[in-house]
């Protein structure tokens, strides 16, 4: 197979497809605000559910006059009067549940967390268990330090054993608390997994589980799949995955959304991780969900598929076979810039594949929306579209490159040489070089030169010869020298 290996090397000029495919995270540092469309890592329980309201209504009346100070809370919690314990825990929970500025730090400083954790084990006092679980859930929803305090108070085993509580609301509250702990990061996620959280958690999923409860479980499961460095252990993933696949068939959109998020995390990694997901045969369902009108479903489904196509040619082919190319045009034209961007990123990775896949991309009518995006899209999406074109010109056959040019890619591509982003400019210049290589093979160099000049590209490339970035100016210079110097 040396022959095809060399041919491939030639085609991609030393870069193999894996190098062309760009994983999601190039840079771990973010300057931007946390993305609004990301799944929430931790949640606080503010108004819990109807059940709680009805439950607390009665209490509210009873306790109306009782206002406990922080000192009184400490005293009561540490005391032995179960009635007072419940009152104090409830007061704590209520403070932590208020809409604005919950006093998590103040509560933390009271040092009552170990005691609250202890209450979780009071199987004979379900109301106390519940209030403590709720309060701890909300503490764990805070910063990493807050979560840490809860974990160090010994909450993990306590919550795990409460999963099997006979009181559904306690079990549900524990699911939530565990979700917050898992959401903190890979360390606690794995601590939970090592404490064997998965079997009792999965046991809660049944056809009769109420939807609200199921949403919480799905969300917690997704947090158990989340985060890299390291990834969640493989055997845990293998246990969770079949359940996620079932949940994805549910009719509730939050459940579908969170299970999609979970799968998107599982695919955000090395190719063997992707393979595990591909092997479940879930890709067609994911593609179907990508076309969902619900943003909360489409976003994670698109992510998951986007991740799959960062994998091997075969994995990408599986996504293509599942119909991803039919759905992408619509997403590339989506009104939301982040969706455009994600779709374009996905496309760029498909375009990094072998020419057979590029051909499928053409046949599925993806060039027109790609060109549109390049022309009119949001800048974030335009950047990804530029990558798509670059990869296309690196791996595509001469005929395919001709088709690309005929679809009008050149004008918007050259316009983007004015982009205020050095990398994008460099990628465009590389793409232009690729186009010229193709033109040379066809003996059409001169025509391409004229086209580039006509479309205002030449003067832009000339101007880039004074760009401050070394690589940009060198690339510009080399194009000018090769194709535009002399008569």
């Amino acid at each position: 197979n040396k022959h095809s290996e060399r041919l491939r090397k030639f085609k991609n000029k030393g870069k193999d497809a894996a190098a062309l495919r760009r994983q999601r995270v190039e840079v771990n540092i973010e300057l931007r605000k946390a993305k609004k469309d990301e799944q929430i890592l931790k949640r606080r329980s503010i108004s819990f559910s109807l059940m709680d309201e009805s439950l607390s209504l009665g209490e509210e009346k009873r306790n109306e006059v009782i206002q406990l100070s922080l000192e009184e809370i400490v005293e009561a919690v540490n005391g032995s009067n179960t009635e007072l314990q419940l009152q104090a825990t409830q007061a704590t929970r209520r403070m932590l549940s208020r809409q604005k500025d919950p006093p998590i730090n103040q509560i933390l400083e009271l040092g009552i967390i170990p005691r609250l954790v202890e209450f979780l084990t009071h199987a004979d006092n379900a109301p106390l268990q519940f209030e403590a679980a709720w309060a701890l859930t909300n503490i764990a929803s805070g910063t990493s330090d807050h979560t840490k305090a809860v974990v160090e108070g010994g909450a993990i085993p306590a919550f795990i054993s409460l999963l099997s509580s006979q009181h559904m609301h306690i079990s549900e509250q524990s699911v939530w608390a565990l979700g917050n702990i898992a959401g903190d990061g890979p360390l606690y996620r794995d601590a939970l997994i090592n404490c064997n959280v998965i079997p009792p958690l999965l046991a809660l999923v049944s056809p009769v589980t109420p939807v609200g409860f199921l949403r919480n479980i799905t969300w917690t499961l997704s947090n158990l799949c989340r985060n890299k460095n390291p990834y969640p252990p493989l055997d845990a993933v293998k246990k969770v995955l079949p359940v996620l696949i079932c949940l994805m068939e549910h009719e509730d959109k939050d459940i579908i959304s969170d299970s999609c998020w979970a799968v998107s995390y599982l695919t955000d990694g090395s190719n063997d991780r992707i393979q595990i997901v591909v092997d479940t045969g879930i890709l067609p369902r994911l593609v179907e969900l990508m076309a969902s009108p619900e943003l909360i479903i489409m976003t994670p489904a698109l992510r998951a598929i986007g991740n799959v196509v960062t994998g091997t040619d075969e994995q990408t082919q599986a996504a293509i076979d599942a119909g991803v190319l039919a759905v992408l045009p619509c997403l590339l034209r989506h009104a939301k810039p982040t969706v455009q961007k994600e779709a374009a990123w996905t496309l760029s990775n498909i375009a990094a594949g072998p020419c057979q896949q590029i051909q499928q991309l053409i046949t599925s009518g993806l060039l027109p929306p790609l060109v549109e995006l390049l022309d009119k899209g949001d800048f974030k999406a335009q950047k990804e579209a530029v990558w798509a074109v670059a990869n296309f010109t690196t791996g595509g056959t001469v005929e395919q490159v001709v088709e690309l040019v005929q679809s009008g890619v050149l004008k918007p591509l050259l316009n983007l040489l004015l982009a205020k982003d050095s990398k994008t400019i460099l990628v465009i210049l590389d793409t232009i070089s690729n186009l010229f290589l193709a033109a040379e093979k066809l003996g059409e160099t001169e025509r391409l030169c004229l086209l580039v000049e006509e479309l205002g590209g030449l003067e832009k490339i000339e101007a880039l010869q004074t760009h401050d970035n070394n690589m940009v100016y060198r690339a510009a210079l080399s194009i000018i020298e090769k194709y535009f110097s002399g008569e």
Partner: protein
Amino acid sequence: MELSDANLQTLTEYLKKTLDPDPAIRRPAEKFLESVEGSQNYPLLLLTLLEKSQENVIKVCASVTFKNYIKRNWRIVGILVEDEPNKICESDRIAIKANIVPLMLSSPEQIQKQLSDAISIIGREDFPQKWPDLLTEMVNRFQSGDFHVINGVLRTAHSLFKRYRHEFKSNELWTEIKLVLDAFALPLTNLFKATIELCSTHANDASALKVLFSSLILIAKLFYSLNFQDLPEFFEDNMETWMTNFHSLLTLDNKLLQTDDEEEAGLLELLKSQICDNAALYAQKYDEEFQPYLPRFVTAIWNLLVTTGQEVKYDLLVSNAIQFLASVCERPHYKHLFEDQNTLTSICEKVIVPNMEFRAADEEAFEDNSEEYIRRDLEGSDIDTRRRAACDLVRGLCKFFEGPVTGIFSGYVNSMLQEYAKNPSVNWKHKDAAIYLVTSLASKAQTQKHGITQANELVNLTEFFVNHIQPDLKSASVNEFPVLKADGIKYIMIFRNQVPKEQLLVSIPLLINHLQAESIVVHTYAAHALERLFTMRGTNNTTLITAAEMAPFVEVLLTNLFKALTLPGSSENEYIMKAIMRSFSLLQESIIPYIPSVITQLTQKLLAVSKNPSKPHFNHYMFESICLSIRITCKANPDAVGSFEEALFLVFTEILQNDVQEFIPYVFQVMSLLLEMHKNEIPSSYMALFPHLLQPVLWERTGNIPPLVRLLQAYLERGANTIASAAADKIPGLLGVFQKLIASKANDHQGFYLLNSIIEHMPPESVDQYRKQIFILLFQRLQNSKTTKFIKSFLVFINLYCIKYGALALQEIFDSIQPKMFGMVLEKIIIPEIQKVSGQVEKKICAVGITKILTECPPMMDTEYTKLWTPLLQALIGLFELPEDDTIPDEEHFIDIEDTPGYQTAFSQLAFAGKKEHDPVGQMVNNPRIHLAQSLHKLSTACPGRVPSMLSTSLNAEALQYLQGYLQAASVTLL
């Protein structure tokens, strides 16, 4: 060195000496300083001097010396270059970093600038990791309230952060930016607000305002740098503050800040200009977040444009502002901001038209600085001009509103033309604006080669041409209204592909006539327009305008062109010379009657400019014209070559004797052309020159190498026998040139050109004694530095050798250098690298050579080399069928750049002195694949059974299939 008064004194003395105009005093002092700069405390002594010296010149000198010292030495290169130790010891580094910021801030401006530069050099290396307190130190100064200090900090920050504008995203970079944002963004925002407040409290204090506005400019620049890579969370959260203030600054005016200077932009203009850039950055990159603010900025910038004057000092601001509008109006979701007919009319009327007017400054340039004017107007170096920005805005608006915009402007054009008609001598500028407007409206795509290639269909270009352009050019006086003449000629030039051919033919005599205009711009444009018309392509890939159509004008054309070269200011006008070249090329043999006069004028010109060559393009076209004269004439009459030699050799000798470096490469090319024109044995005049061409000094200059090699190749082609018989003592010199060339990575291919010519043309016995030495030299170079380029040339050479001397001779010469060498070359070089050979002829040479090795070299069949037979065959089939391997190892990417000398010595190849590609294999082998099949067949008949068995054991299936194809095509079978 200790930090002692004595040392300070010594250093002062030496610094003083470095300022001495006498090199005998200056140089040793510089040497001394360089010799002590590695000592500890040296930089601290300099810092002490620049702070405390009694004499200002010493302070400044110390600061400059310090900056240069930092520039040379701060970066620790030890990892890359082992011999260069770290010259600045750690304690000095720490001391410098601890003291430099306060020192910079308390210094007078002249020294502050040097220290600020030094800080950014240090910062580039040490910030942030190794200089963690720098930011805090800087930010703390914001509180000082002293704007001299604050501006110093801001300037330093700007020089530290401006690289964020062009560097690639990386973890390292973004970590740094995040750190800067955390420490800097809030204080900068507070400073911004405070400064704006101070501006209103000091609204009546001119000198305070100046300082405050300098701060605002720097703050606005820092905003740009910090927001460039991505939209930082902080700035997203504080967008309201920044954008509201930017917006109000755009609308602000204060008489105290207005400057009297017409040319230089004032603080207010600089600030507004930067704000336009900031708004454009947000509009382009962070559209989603910026959308709520954008309409306000559009309005403000548009108002700004309406109220800004025509003075040159506003040019940058105006062009930035227009470019902002141009980029916004193209975006679909902002279309509505421009849609309204009143808005469009007002933009056209108040923004576009005024900025297209021919200003006093343009008129001045047209008359007094025509070269600059031509460059701007013709060659598109007008990127920052108002006219250009206005054109871009027209194009941007036409994307969605072509109809309405064309309508509005048509009305305008008509009214301006009417104004002109009323009183041309007063109102000619109105017509200029009208022509410019039509041009910018009509042109949708343009190239130098073809002019406008796509035009607005709503504009009738031919009608405008006939009614408004031609009448101007037909007027009796070529010197009246020169600007309008230039406009008219330019119109023909750029719309040459839209205007019908019969109109172009009508224009040609008019253009020829305008070669006589006194205005440099006008006759230059006329020459340029003619040159462009002559390059236009018609059907059948011929020129659009034929020599026959030009016949009536040949004499007047040539006369006017050469006469134009005598007009004041145009004696070395490159456009005219290029038009001469193009005319020759178009007219071909119809110029022959005029050649005697032409060549006289050209040689006179050559002689004149060779005294002081200053216009490279002019010179280049002049030599091209000479080459064309030779080619055209000698094609009709080969014997004419003698008369050219007679006319030219005298000047050439002078050029060579005076060593006119710019011209020598050209002279060699013309001589090569002349020599190649000779059909018989080489003339003695050339042989007399031969020894001189081998002089090492000529080969020192890179620009000489290609044409000299070419010339020597011509010598070898025409006179190999003469050299062998009459100049055999020069052969070692010739080989010396070869040896020098192949030692260089940049020139080795030239060495091979020469060597290949020697092998191909010299009688074998004349080079016999040197052959082995040649191979040894090649091997030495191979061992010392093996580059892809060298390998490619080497492969071509050994295969050519094989063709010329036979495969057996090749094998023998290798094995005579070292036993089994031939096998090693096959295995390590030919088989793995042959795929890299590029070029039709080169590939053919290699194919034929390898075929010979396979089929005409007995040791390949019956020694240990036999095991290489099939791999070699497979490599050959690969050469035929696989795509060329154009990969270059990473470490070789920069070879060419580091070895390529600067522009001035670059070689300028003459297109019309070019020679056609030479194929040494020629008709001997037409189809190398068939040739391989036939040769294999011949081999198999000589030893039946062996070839098929070698093929079946180890040739891969695909290659075998190809081979069978060749055999079939050649109708032969293997026995």
